[in-house]
């Protein structure tokens, strides 16, 4: 990207080239921290770096201003190299008030930099954050470099001529702070100036004020001598093509739209608001001209039931929720298994049990997805690895659901849903069409006569003359689908439903192994731990040590070559954000010892946590 013309030339200070930076923005949940983080991310993406982000915010709509529970964070890591995580310890902490400093200080690198809005370090705010003395003055920040900027005052001064009220002018201070950081890390202002212009197009005074604040922060950093250095992170050598920055939620929605388009079938999304899945409903509801119907149901049960009804009537039926919602949907999913209807269930997992920590991530619904219903109730389970991968996984889920006439789970999580990364835009002409191939012959139609290869029954939908039939949750007689209590038939049907789902493994490509195909240690991961595990494995391998890595997208059934791969290694390590659910499944499936590494803090793994475990094992 060329340098935007709106940027002034930099003054002559040391410009240092660095490989990777991790910054954490922290402030009150009313400070616009997520917005600032997203704008910085966009500017960074446009500057051509690879990046990863970690938004982290309270579940409360607005905790009391200035308090510890009210702190909202946004971390971004960007690099000239390919990276996979939002970084471990931040190099820079931007703290808009004492509470933000207090909450985040422990995570900051020992030699890190703290940039504070010193205007907010008032006795009242210090007290609210539980400080007995001012950390900016009492030496408690150790060897870290502290840069104090009176942002409130400087921002108001910059906006002196604005017609806005003082309260409205104050609101612009996050852009002032952002301007300072843009200078420090050599980010282009243009994407954010443009975003402000678009966002507030109806109110020119607000556009003017926010743009002025952003520029003023930038010029302040440039003209004063608070910084001795500025930093440049060069463009990453990403694969060529067109990119946009994308969150897991956005990618999931695009994947659902793409899946419906590829199947040339209307998609029906039934959902009930729940954090962190609600944004899927919000986004899909804006895409009704893509053959998308959205239904905000009265509860989770109605949401999945309506999706099942729509699937029965020929739509791509999808429901999205988080763990507690899946708990409510369980009985209906069993019905879809018995009726053998296609259904996609997206679970944006969060920390539990019960209401748990709604805005914090965990991977602890794997067993719920695989076995969490009454009786033998097999379904397929998939998990995306990265935010952008949600696109492919959503399409894959629709493909499997339709091809095998089965419910398919997609296990995303709060971290995947909210974090973002650059996405190389796919060429949609290369995406495989989703064909609904198992049509039946009207002259000899039986609702449970199966395709010999997939074992799928025909998807015959109401409205088709001559195919009238009845289905339901009672056990089905083989082939006819009539109600049957015959013991042998029940066993046969139970085995058939299990086998049908097992056969999905025939559609799973050969497992990709990072590293040697056999050896001492194999790491197996799934879902959003992909980035941290990949980085840890890369770091260990870069030191010349041997460790191999498999990341599973298909959690149930497992890929057919997985057992053989596992047997070629002495030790298998499974890092998970739960107490060992994949570990349990692997042990049960292959009868081999597997070591777990567990973290259930509502936060993603750090690279270092996985790396040190790997190093301990080799």
């Amino acid at each position: 990207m060329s340098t935007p013309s709106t940027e002034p030339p930099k003054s002559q200070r040391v410009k240092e080239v660095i490989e990777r930076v991790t910054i954490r923005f922290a402030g009150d949940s009313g400070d616009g921290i997520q917005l600032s983080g997203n704008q910085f991310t966009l500017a960074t993406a446009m500057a051509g770096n690879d990046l990863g982000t970690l938004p982290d915010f309270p579940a409360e709509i607005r905790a009391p201003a200035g308090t510890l529970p009210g702190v909202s964070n946004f971390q971004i890591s960007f690099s000239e190299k390919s990276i996979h995580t939002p970084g471990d310890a931040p190099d820079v902490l931007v703290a808009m008030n004492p509470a933000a400093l207090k909450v985040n200080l422990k995570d900051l690198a020992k030699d890190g930099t703290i940039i504070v809005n010193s205007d907010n370090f008032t006795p009242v705010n210090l007290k609210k954050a539980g400080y007995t003395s001012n950390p900016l003055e009492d030496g408690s920040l150790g060897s870290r470099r502290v840069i104090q900027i009176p942002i409130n005052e400087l921002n108001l001064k910059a906006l002196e001529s604005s017609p806005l009220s003082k309260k409205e002018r104050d609101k612009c201070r996050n852009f002032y702070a952002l301007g300072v950081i843009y200078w420090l890390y050599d980010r282009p202002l243009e994407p954010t100036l443009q975003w402000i212009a678009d966002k507030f197009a109806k109110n020119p005074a607000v556009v003017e004020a926010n743009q002025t604040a952003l520029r003023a922060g930038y010029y302040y950093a440039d003209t004063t001598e608070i910084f001795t250095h500025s930093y440049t992170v060069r463009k990453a050598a990403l694969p060529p093509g067109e990119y946009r920055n994308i969150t897991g939620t956005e990618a999931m929605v695009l994947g659902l739209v793409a899946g419906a388009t590829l199947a040339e079938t209307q998609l029906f999304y039934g959902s009930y608001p729940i954090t962190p899945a609600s944004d899927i409903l919000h986004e899909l509801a804006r895409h009704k001209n893509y053959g998308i119907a959205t239904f905000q149901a009265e509860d989770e049960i109605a949401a999945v039931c309506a999706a099942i009804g729509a699937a029965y009537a020929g739509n791509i039926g999808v429901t999205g929720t988080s763990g507690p919602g899946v708990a409510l949907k369980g009985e209906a999913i069993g019905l879809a298994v018995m009726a053998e209807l296609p259904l996609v269930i997206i679970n944006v997992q969060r920390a539990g049990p019960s209401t748990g920590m709604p805005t914090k991530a965990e991977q602890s619904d794997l067993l719920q997805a695989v076995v969490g219903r009454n009786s033998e109730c097999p379904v397929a389970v998939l998990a995306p690895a990265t935010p952008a991968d949600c696109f492919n996984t959503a399409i894959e889920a629709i493909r499997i659901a339709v091809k095998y006439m089965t419910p398919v789970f997609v296990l995303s999580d709060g971290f995947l849903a909210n974090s973002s990364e650059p996405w190389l835009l796919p060429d949609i002409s290369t995406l495989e069409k989703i064909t609904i191939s198992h049509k039946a012959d009207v002259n000899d139609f039986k609702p449970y006569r199966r395709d010999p290869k997939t074992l799928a029954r025909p998807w015959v939908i109401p409205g088709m003359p001559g195919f009238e039939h009845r289905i339901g949750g009672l056990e089905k007689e083989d082939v006819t689908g009539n109600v049957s209590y015959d013991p042998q038939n029940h066993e046969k049907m139970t085995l058939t439903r299990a086998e049908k789902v097992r056969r999905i493994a025939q559609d799973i490509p050969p497992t990709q192994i990072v590293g040697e195909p056999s050896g001492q240690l194999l790491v197996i991961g799934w879902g959003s731990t992909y980035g941290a595990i990949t980085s840890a494995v890369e770091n260990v391998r870069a030191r010349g040590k041997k460790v191999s890595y498999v990341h599973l997208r298909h959690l149930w059934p497992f890929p057919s070559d997985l057992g053989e791969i596992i047997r070629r290694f002495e030790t298998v390590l499974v890092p998970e954000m739960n107490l060992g659910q994949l570990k349990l499944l692997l042990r049960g499936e292959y009868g081999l010892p597997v070591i777990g590494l567990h973290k259930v803090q509502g936060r993603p793994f750090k690279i270092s946590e996985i790396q040190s475990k790997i190093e301990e094992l080799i």
Partner: protein
Amino acid sequence: MATMTAPAPQTPKPTRKDYESDQEVRWCPGCGDYSILAQMQRVCADLAIPREKLVFVSGIGCSSRFPYYMNTYGFHTIHGRAPAIATGVKCANPDLMVWVMTGDGDGLSIGGNHMLHTLRRNVDLKIVLFNNRIYGLTKGQTSPTSEMGKITKSTPIGSIEHPIQPVAFALAAEATFVARAIDGEPQHMQEVLKRAAQHKGVAFVEVFQNCNIFNDGAWEYLTAREIRDDRIIELRHGQPMKFGKNLDKGLRLKGFRLEVVQLGQGVSESDLLVHDETDEDASLAFLLSRENPDLPVPIGVFRSVSHPTYDGLMKAQIDDYTSKRGKGDLRKLIHSGQRWTVGA
């Protein structure tokens, strides 16, 4: 009167037999369900509704076995959820005529929430609630319509719950069509079911239905031949509210209450209330639906008003949005927002 929207008749004209499935009907001998099944099959034949356009969705309970016995599309689902599943069916394909067959326990206990929201949304579903005031399939526990003090297996010393009034519930939920029929009155039930079929919008029909095993004579205090005419009033649109063997009694409004009056003794027909099922204000219908031992119990159509349907609005909104925005172009959608290019 709601507009007639029955599909074009098939040739030759179908008979009741055409709507009978090959499955053996397994209800207890003497069950009121048989009558409902027979009337439904007759109504479908009379209206010549193509079998492939008919979907019967049910929950759990004796009534919910209904779809197996209809030679149409059918989905026997899970307890209480039939209205939600039927909503999905109807939204996915508004051309289908979708019936929900449910019972007092299924529809008003476990499924009460779905019933409420389906009614207030005005999804174009026909809901038939079989009310026998007992749990039959689970062998005789109290139901949400069981009377106070009822002795059942789960209430051996008497129920301490006040019963729900299904018609009052439906009216309070703003249902656009609300009616009541009796299993022992086939002609009247046919009339009501036909009207429900022809209604564009949600149609809620309560059927007083006997369970001769666990709650025999559930409605006899109203329907027994010798008292029936004094205890039941048939609502007829545009007609004065008259009842009694000789149609010599009537209903009149006294303040905010209904009262029974004897015609002829200084009271003439012109003093009586005239039933208006199309009244947007459902207050009088609600008053009629309340349980009151001094008043006759109404059957027939309480309310029939025309409102846009949920499924129709959903389709119209999608169509309208699509015509304004143009049919979605996946490539454009993917290539939207702020983008950048990395060179080779």
